[in-house]
């Protein structure tokens, strides 16, 4: 697998990288492009290594993890940082959903993605707030090359009975182009290799080893039109992604509940509790390139509409609501980016401006985050100086201003306070400004088979309204969460390095990093109670983190290749109430070894790429004892995965078949970084995935 993926490896053939290749030494060219640690994932890699979903495919990349949140969905993390501490961008625009939520997935049509890039480490310079841990860059703007071209994909998974179909069509006519996509996915409750789950001494028997009510569906569609000239390019893309999925019924969050709903009558129905999200995005991208100057603009509107429904219950003084609408969030985001690129001698200067406005409204009987508006503005300037062909220096500086306005919220039911019924105020009106000056500097140096990179930078994150203004019961995790209006903008300093050695047959890559937060925003479990629930309070603490990823690939001969990779991460709170503890969901060390055999028949043997392969992959994960309340230590485990693929060509059409088996031995294990770990739900059992794709 590694030969297609790592930064030491061959870059995507479909993208602009080929245009800038001078020496013909592609891996070095990519490595020399940026001083940040980054991984490029080509379309071919995504196709060959299809593991059910984009995040499941990407989590084989060292440093990238997918926190599984049940119902086939997962949240990305980079080097242990996720949620609002990493940014997901689609065609250069930051994706804005409800990233803070534990149950909230990616909300992007992953089958429309042409290629992906992961930036490991801070990237505030270009992306502003949130990109502290890194950026997952998704691209779905590849310009078609034929008059009419398209693709149909059929795919399925056995574990949750997932069936799906995705189609795309596109064309280029006199520099005008169009693209259209659709994806439909349906899945049933997923299976775990256990008959029952035990939680807080409650034993929850599972019907046919299925996690009740985790079924779901997804419907995505997009249309794009554009003009691709030599110096001028413009396009507009409208996409909509809708998904609905159930929450594990027996323990929606941390409460164990019985219900009259007969969940076991079908594994495919979606009963309460469930969530649905609709993400609408309109994106416009325009570039103009002169001989020295280039101008780029991005304009976008996004609307994220999320509904979380559950059986109404009374809790404390809250009477039983008359509907199932527990939480509704309606968030609109307007973004505008403007960038200038200027080549002067050996200098490549880039400067730009990012503006973003967010508007969030809530409904429903459960209160967790207040209504808010956030306006932010950032300006940056960076220079990349090529001293020699093998020595590049870069430095940049950025200033950000953000303005957060939080609305007040009162309970919709009265609570007796000293005998008087009172509508308690949960959220105070709040107006805060945040300023931040961030910077980054780096070096790239290559010598023979070596490339060395180093990057130092400061990143920041504006506290999100939940951290500033939350004051309520989180029904998903059954705890009381209270914001802290006095929080400062979170800052992070990071030193990244990458050492890369490649002789064409063998490559080695080692990526260590050191990361320090003077004021990490941490949701601290306290010893206090509010309304019968343990109070979790946002505080700030110094945090030190360090770790590394390493990957070794070896193309033994034309047929055989192997990969050995590993990652390690350490995090510690250096001050505050949890001094000495780690951070929640601390990633344990892991190693992965893979052997791959490529083959073909007859005439195929003379072509540069063999069309078929079989690969065996073993993943070994260490025990995690480094925990914070309310976590539990998690045992180590190993799992075996298999994959195989075949690429057929005839005339102008081609067909790819990809097969993948996860957890071949159906082992029962727990993933420390999974949200369901807290309620003792093991990871999914054996799963076969298959995909057939036809290009025309």
């Amino acid at each position: 697998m590694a030969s297609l993926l790592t930064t030491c490896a061959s870059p995507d053939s479909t993208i602009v990288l080929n245009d800038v290749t001078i020496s013909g030494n592609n891996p070095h060219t990519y490595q020399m492009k940026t001083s940040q640690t980054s991984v490029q994932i080509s379309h071919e890699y995504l196709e060959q290594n299809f593991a059910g979903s984009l995040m499941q495919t990407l989590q084989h990349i060292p440093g990238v993890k997918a926190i599984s949140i049940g119902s086939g969905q997962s949240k990305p993390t980079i080097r242990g940082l996720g949620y609002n501490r990493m940014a997901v961008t689609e065609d250069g625009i930051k994706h804005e959903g409800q990233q803070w939520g534990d149950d909230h997935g990616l909300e992007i049509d992953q089958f429309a993605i042409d290629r992906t890039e992961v930036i490991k480490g801070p990237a505030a310079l270009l992306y502003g707030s949130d990109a502290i841990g890194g950026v997952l860059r998704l691209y779905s703007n590849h310009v078609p090359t034929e008059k009419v071209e398209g693709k149909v994909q059929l795919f399925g998974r056995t574990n949750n009975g997932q069936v799906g179909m995705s189609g795309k069509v596109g064309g280029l006519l006199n520099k005008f182009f169009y693209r259209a996509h659709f994806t439909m996915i349906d899945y049933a409750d997923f299976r775990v290799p256990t008959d029952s789950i035990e939680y807080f001494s409650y034993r929850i028997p599972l019907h046919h080893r299925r996690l009740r009510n985790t079924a779901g569906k997804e419907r995505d569609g997009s249309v794009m039109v554009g003009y691709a000239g030599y110096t001028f390019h413009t396009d507009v893309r409208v996409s909509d992604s809708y998904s609905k999925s159930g929450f594990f019924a027996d323990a929606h969050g941390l409460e164990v509940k019985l219900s009259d709903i007969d969940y076991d009558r079908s594994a495919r129905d979606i009963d309460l509790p469930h969530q649905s999200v609709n993400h609408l995005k309109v994106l416009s991208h325009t570039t103009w390139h002169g001989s020295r100057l280039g101008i780029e603009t991005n304009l976008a509107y996004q609307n994220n509409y999320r509904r979380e429904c559950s059986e109404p219950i009374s809790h404390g003084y809250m009477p039983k609501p008359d509907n199932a609408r527990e939480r509704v969030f309606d968030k609109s985001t307007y973004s505008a980016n403007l960038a200038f690129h200027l080549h002067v001698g050996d200098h490549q200067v880039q400067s730009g401006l990012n503006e973003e406005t967010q508007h969030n409204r809530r409904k429903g009987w459960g209160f967790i985050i207040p209504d808010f508006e956030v306006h932010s503005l950032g300006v940056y300037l960076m220079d990349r100086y090529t001293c020699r062909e093998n020595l590049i220096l870069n430095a940049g500086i950025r200033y950000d201003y953000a303005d957060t306005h939080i609305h007040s919220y009162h309970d919709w039911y009265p609570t007796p306070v000293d005998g008087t019924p009172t509508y308690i105020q949960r959220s105070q009106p709040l107006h805060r400004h945040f300023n931040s000056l961030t910077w980054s500097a780096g070096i790239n140096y290559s010598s023979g088979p070596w490339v060395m990179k180093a990057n130092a930078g400061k990143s920041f994150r504006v506290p999100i309204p939940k951290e500033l203004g939350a004051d309520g019961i989180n029904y998903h995790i059954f705890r009381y969460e209270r914001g802290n209006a006095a929080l400062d903008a979170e800052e992070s300093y990071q030193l990244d390095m990458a050492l890369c050695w490649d002789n064409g047959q063998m490559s080695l890559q080692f990526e260590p990093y050191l990361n320090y937060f003077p004021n990490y925003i941490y949701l601290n479990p306290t010893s206090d109670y509010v309304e019968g629930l343990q109070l979790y309070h946002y505080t700030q603490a110094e945090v030190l983190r360090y770790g590394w990823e390493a990957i070794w690939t070896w193309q033994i001969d034309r047929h055989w290749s192997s990969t050995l990779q590993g990652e390690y991460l350490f995090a510690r709170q250096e001050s505050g109430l949890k001094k000495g503890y780690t951070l929640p969901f601390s990633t344990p060390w892991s190693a992965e070894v893979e052997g791959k055999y490529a083959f073909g028949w007859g005439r195929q043997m003379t072509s540069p790429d063999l069309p078929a392969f079989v690969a065996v992959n073993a993943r070994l994960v260490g025990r995690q004892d480094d925990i914070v309340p309310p976590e539990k230590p998690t045992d180590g485990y190993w799992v075996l995965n298999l994959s195989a693929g075949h690429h057929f060509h005839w005339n102008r059409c081609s067909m790819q078949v990809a097969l993948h088996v996860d957890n071949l031995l159906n082992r029962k294990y727990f993933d420390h970084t999974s949200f369901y770990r807290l309620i003792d739900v093991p990871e999914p059992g054996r799963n076969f995935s298959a995909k057939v794709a036809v290009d025309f």
Partner: protein
Amino acid sequence: MKQFFLFLSLLVALSACGGSDHQEDMTKPTIVDTVEDACPTDCQTFRRGEEMPFCYLLGDNDELGNYNIEIHNNFDHHTHSTSSVECEMDAKKEPVHPWIYNEDFAIPAGSTSFVARQFIQIPADIDPGDYHFMVRVTDRSGWQQLKAVAIKVVE
């Protein structure tokens, strides 16, 4: 190849400095009924208008935090008991004026063992029926333990 071994030794050196030696508290507090008059216990019945005694032994290896008592109805049979005992329950019904009780109590600072004792007045006008009696206790580090007892309130 020499470079490769250089690599490996660097890796080993870096991981070696990440040992985690725990001095931090990793133990949850406990709620046990080893006191003589532990109350309430599963399936116990109480009368409206009377005083209900509460007594359990709370413990922690380091330092106890606070405890909370919360009582809510189980008229919909949503089950909450943390023990395997199955109590005989009344038929399901809609609450009209159910008993809601939710109080937090402090534990003297520095305690590692504490006999929690309260007398809870059962209002005379509440709906009789099945109730859940929940005890939660935290320790100083934020670990929490929970105990749920199924009780019945009669007229």
